Structures are given as structure tokens and as C-alpha cells.
């Protein structure tokens, strides 16, 4: 955290840790797991230097539980993990969704299932991020495609968590996590920090789950004089358990409404070479790097192709595709999984363009040449 823009060579995991600090995260709980461990190691050093706290828990179940507890105490919180740990976090991720607790989970994705290929990249947890915890719930998942984005998206993740009182997942593939690049770190004064809205009414008037016009209720910290109840049961505006069908409906629908209202803001998308594009690559994470290089080569050989780069995966930014569908003949979705976002693209497309997937699940990445070859096959 500096007073003027500084430039540093750092890896994606380091950029996440720097982003967390810049966003005002003051509490981290985690459990060691490859390939995310650097985030924990860096924050174990850096948090206490800044008056924050770090704790290594007994497992990932405890890690997310501890950051929920600290968030209820008023801290901005974050944990970092990878596939197996992310699986263990699903239980309390659901709690945080229903109880509307701001927190960030960084999942540096490795190849699964199970222990899988522990040190190899993957994008296999995209659907798990969406539906991993049981029950209907909204989720926000961001995915950086460069080291610098890892820094900025971590800040955005913390801000979205605070603004929408919802868990936010940063899905980063191992390539970005361990890639080193020069990153420009803006001065702290240029960093936007969003804090959850705190209640300011008298204690007796406070209804912890009464939604304001934004769809989000103000959140009191424990110890601030607003004695209230937080539960993982379906609850009414007071936070008390209810089985009343109308109150249950309001509770669950309210979770979705607040994210729907923020949909446009939450959806981070970029377009590259799309103006005249007849073909597109929909890419996210490290696949953006391969796609970018492939597009350069394909443009040189006269193929009008561009990229729709997804920075947000959930909620799925369908408008980013819909906007270009009328002009597109083919779309390629390269992914380090069996085709998870491909299915979303199919769903949005509804029969307009030809959509192909290009998948890899052997722990290696998809190289630009392979994309070039596939696109040339499609375009013909």
C-alpha cells in the first residue's frame, strides 16, 4: 500500500494478497493447500503488520466458519483454497448465502476431481462455484485473467461482498495464480473501498433482514449494541426462524432480488476485436491469454474474430453474448474443463450461432495454435 503508483513483479497469488490488503481485509482464516498457499503465507505476515489478524484453522470447514464469525464481528474477511478445500467449504458457504454474510473465497483451481493433479491448472470448479452448496441461492464469482486483474478483482470481490452482503468467489486457475508479471499498484488513495451499510436507527427499531430500497439490509456487527439473531434457518425480517410460507418465500426470493438488481454492475466483461467480428472466442482465466494470441494469428490470416472475455462467471453475463449473437457465425469456448461455461453459452445462444467447445482436462493448458487450428476448422 503505497502513496504513488508502484510497479512490482509478482505472481497472481501475491496480487490477490495485495488486493485483499488494499480492499481493507483485516481477517484471514485458512488451511494450507496447493496451489493457493502463498496467499495464506503472505497474509500471515502482512495482516499483523497492518493490525489485522490471521489464523490457520484445523481444516477448510473451520476456515470459512472463522471468517463468517469475524465478518459478523465487523471485519472484511477472505480465505483462499483450492478444489478439495473448496468442497469442504460448501456447507458454510450456504450459511453465508442465507445469513447474508459478506466474505470472499479465493479458489485457485487445480485439476480434479478429488486430489486430482494437485499442481496443475484447471477451470473445473466453475459449476461447483455456482451450485456447490445445497439449496437455491445466488452467488457472485469473478475470474481474473492476468496477474494485474487478480489484484483488481480481489478488491472488487471484497467490495461486492460488502455491498451485496453476499459471499463472493474468486475463481483463479493455477496458471494465473503462479504466473509472474509486472503489476502496477495504484496508490491507496485511488482504491475504491466499499463498506457494508451499518444500521443507524435505535436498537429497538433494527430489523436485521428488512431489505432497504437497494434490496440489501444494513448489517450490524456483534458488540455494537444491536443485539440480534443470525441463523442458517429460513428466517423472517427479525432474523428469527420461520416456517411461514410467505416469510420463507420472501427470505429466499430476497436473496436473488438483491443480486438481480446489481446484475449489470457485477458483470465484468471485456471485448477485444469484436467490432467487425464474425466469429468469437468466449474465454476467461488463463484461456484469455491463449485466445488473445490465437486471435492475432487468425486476424493475420484474414479471419474476422474477436474475444468476449468474461471477468464475471456468476451471475452469467448473458447480455455480453446477446449483444453480438446477431453478427456471429461461430463461437468457440476453450476451457480447462469438459465444457462448463460452454453450456451457458449454448443456453444463451438459443440456436443462433454455431458453438464449438475446446476442452482440456489433463493438467496442461490449451495453446494458441490449438485454438487457431480449431477456429480454422470451424470457419471453413
Amino acid at each position, binding site marked *: 500500500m503505497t502513496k504513488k503508483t508502484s510497479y512490482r513483479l509478482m505472481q497472481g497469488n501475491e496480487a490477490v494478497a495485495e488486493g485483499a490488503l488494499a480492499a481493507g481485509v483485516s481477517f484471514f482464516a485458512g488451511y494450507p493447500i496447493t496451489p493457493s498457499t502463498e496467499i495464506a503465507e503472505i497474509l500471515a505476515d502482512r495482516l499483523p503488520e497492518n493490525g489485522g489478524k490471521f489464523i490457520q484453522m484445523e481444516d477448510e470447514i473451520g476456515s470459512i466458519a472463522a471468517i463468517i*464469525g469475524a465478518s459478523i464481528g465487523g471485519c472484511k474477511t477472505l480465505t483462499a483454497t483450492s478444489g478439495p478445500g473448496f468442497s469442504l467449504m460448501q456447507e458454510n458457504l450456504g450459511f453465508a448465502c442465507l445469513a447474508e454474510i459478506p466474505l470472499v473465497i479465493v479458489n485457485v483451481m487445480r485439476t480434479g476431481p478429488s486430489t486430482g493433479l494437485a499442481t496443475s491448472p484447471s477451470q473445473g470448479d466453475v459449476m461447483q462455484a455456482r451450485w456447490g452448496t445445497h439449496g437455491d441461492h445466488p452467488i457472485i464469482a469473478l475470474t481474473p485473467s492476468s496477474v494485474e486483474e487478480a489484484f483488481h478483482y480481489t478488491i472488487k470481490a471484497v467490495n461486492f461482498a460488502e455491498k451485496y452482503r453476499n459471499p463472493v468467489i474468486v475463481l483463479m486457475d493455477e496458471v494465473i495464480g503462479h504466473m509472474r508479471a509486472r503489476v502496477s499498484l495504484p496508490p491507496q488513495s485511488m482504491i475504491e473501498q466499499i463498506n457494508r451499510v451499518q444500521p443507524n436507527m435505535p436498537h429497538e427499531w433494527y430489523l436485521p433482514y428488512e431489505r432497504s430500497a437497494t434490496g440489501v439490509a444494513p448489517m450490524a456487527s456483534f458488540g455494537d449494541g444491536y443485539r440480534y439473531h443470525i441463523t442458517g434457518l429460513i428466517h423472517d425480517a427479525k432474523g428469527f426462524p420461520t416456517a411461514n410460507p410467505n416469510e420463507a418465500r420472501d427470505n429466499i426470493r430476497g436473496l436473488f432480488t438483491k443480486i438481480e438488481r446489481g446484475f449489470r454492475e457485477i458483470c465484468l466483461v471485456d471485448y477485444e476485436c469484436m467490432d467487425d467480428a464474425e466469429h468469437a472466442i468466449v474465454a476467461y482465466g488463463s484461456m484469455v491469454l491463449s485466445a488473445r494470441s490465437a486471435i492475432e494469428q487468425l486476424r493475420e490470416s484474414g479471419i474476422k474474430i474477436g474475444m468476449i472475455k468474461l471477468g464475471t462467471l456468476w451471475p452469467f453475463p448473458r447480455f455480453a453474448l446477446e449483444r453480438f449473437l446477431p453478427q456471429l457465425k461461430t463461437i468457440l469456448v476453450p476451457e480447462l474443463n469438459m465444457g462448463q461455461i460452454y453450456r451457458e453459452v449454448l443456453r444463451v445462444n438459443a440456436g443462433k450461432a454455431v458453438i464449438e467447445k475446446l476442452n482440456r482436462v489433463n493438467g496442461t493448458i490449451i495453446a494458441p495454435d490449438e485454438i487457431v487450428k480449431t477456429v480454422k476448422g470451424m470457419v471453413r
Partner: protein
Amino acid sequence: MISNSQLVNKYFRHSKKFPHIWCPGCGIGIILGNMLRSIDALAIDKNDIAFVSGIGCTGRAPVYVDFNTLHTTHGRALPFATGLKLARPELNVIVATGDGDATAIGGNHLIHACRRNIDITTIIFNNYIYGMTGGQYSPTTPHGDKAYTCKLGNIERPFNISALVEAAGATFVGRTTSYHTLQMQNIIKKAIRHKGFSVVEIITHCPTTYGRLNRKGGAVEMLKWQKEVAIDKSRAEKMSPTELEGRIITGVLIEKELPEFCEQYDSIIEQAQNQTKGKLK
């Protein structure tokens, strides 16, 4: 001492729709009531108490009382409480958990919280059974006793919770029963005052499932049984192992001072900040 009506008026949530969910004769209400009496005797401000629970019959206790209350997931009350305590060290964090919640699904969190010696008071309501789900055997169901998942008798050996948490490093361990209410209040008071991780194991009764299945009679008979088997630590020390067979030793079993986690972390912050200042020079 505070009267019952004063206790109800002062600590129960008027906005919460009663009646509570517990069965007639349940021991949980006795423990909750005495916990409130202990808190009242210590004159702790209600704003300074965070009351955290897991899942099960015991897990429902916080919703009824006027503190900062947090009803978490099954077995996870302690890691939630750990994060909260670190964020708000000035809060008195009290965890209510049942035998299944604390020692089965939450067993790993329990032993690590003991080892860490973080200043949290954990009250374990031990009624030997999973009550909320209708009476399945728990890690404390005695060998040979019946439950709906061991109708021919439990073939597993039970945990001795107090011994378990002592071995795991809890710096305060007390045990009592729901019959011995004055002892309970004293132990809970000491546990809350104790700087470090404290566990109070309270033997209680579930007449609806455990009592019925094992022909222990109703709540009154089960309370009488607690009175008979409990023996104070001071008297137990003079008795032989044979004499102590089938008895439950009560009282403050462990009380020692060791560095507390949050205080130690504060010194880590201080050291880290001094180092950074050094670097800048």
C-alpha cells in the same frame, strides 16, 4: 439472586414467538436458565455477550435470549466463535453445544479450540443422544444402552468429554449435572471469568428419547439419577476406582493459567509492527 420473573423479563426476547421447541421435561431449559443466572450474577452487559450454537436441540437455545446470538451449522459453532472472538476480543463468547454437535461432527473443532486456548466458554449439554432427529446414539451414549439406531444396545464405547477436552488442552474443565443447579451456576461463572478456553460439561436428560428407550423413567427420575451418580471431586479423590465405578465426578476438574490466544496474537501484531517500523528506518 434474581427472581424467575425478573430473569424472564430481563433476558428473554419479547419479540420472539414462544413457546420454545423443547419437549416437556427437557433438561436444556434448566441449563439455559442457570446460565442466565450466572451471567446476571457476573453483571455482564447483554451487549457484551455473544451466544453461539451449532445444530440440535441445544443449538436452538440462543434464539430465545437477548444477546448477540448466532445459530451456526452442525458442529461448527466453535470455529465461528473463534473468528468472532478474534474480531471482537472484548466480547464474552459463550458456545452452547450438544454431545453430538461437540464431539461427533464438531469433534475436530473442539480439540483444536482446546489446544489453541482461545478465551471462549463452551457449555456442552450432554444428554447421551441425538434428540432433534429423534433418538439416535451419540458419541456419549453409554455402551450397551439403546437408541433408535442401536435398538439391541450400543456396541461403541462412549467419550468421556471432560477427559477428552482435558487431554486436548482445555485450561478450564468443569462438570456438573442439570440437577445440581447451584454448582452449575458456580462453575459457569468461573468458566466465563476464566481467561482461556473453558469447557463446562453438563450431564442432562432427554426423557423423550434416551429416557424412554432405556426405561429411565420421566424427567424427575432422571434428575434423581443425576443426583445419585454425581460425586464431587473433593470426595471422589478419597475413593477407590471400584467405589467410583458408575459415578460421575463433578466440580471444577481443571483450572490452570496458560497464555491466551488473542492476547498472544496482540503481541504478534506488536512485534510485526515494530519490525516494519525498523525496516522503514
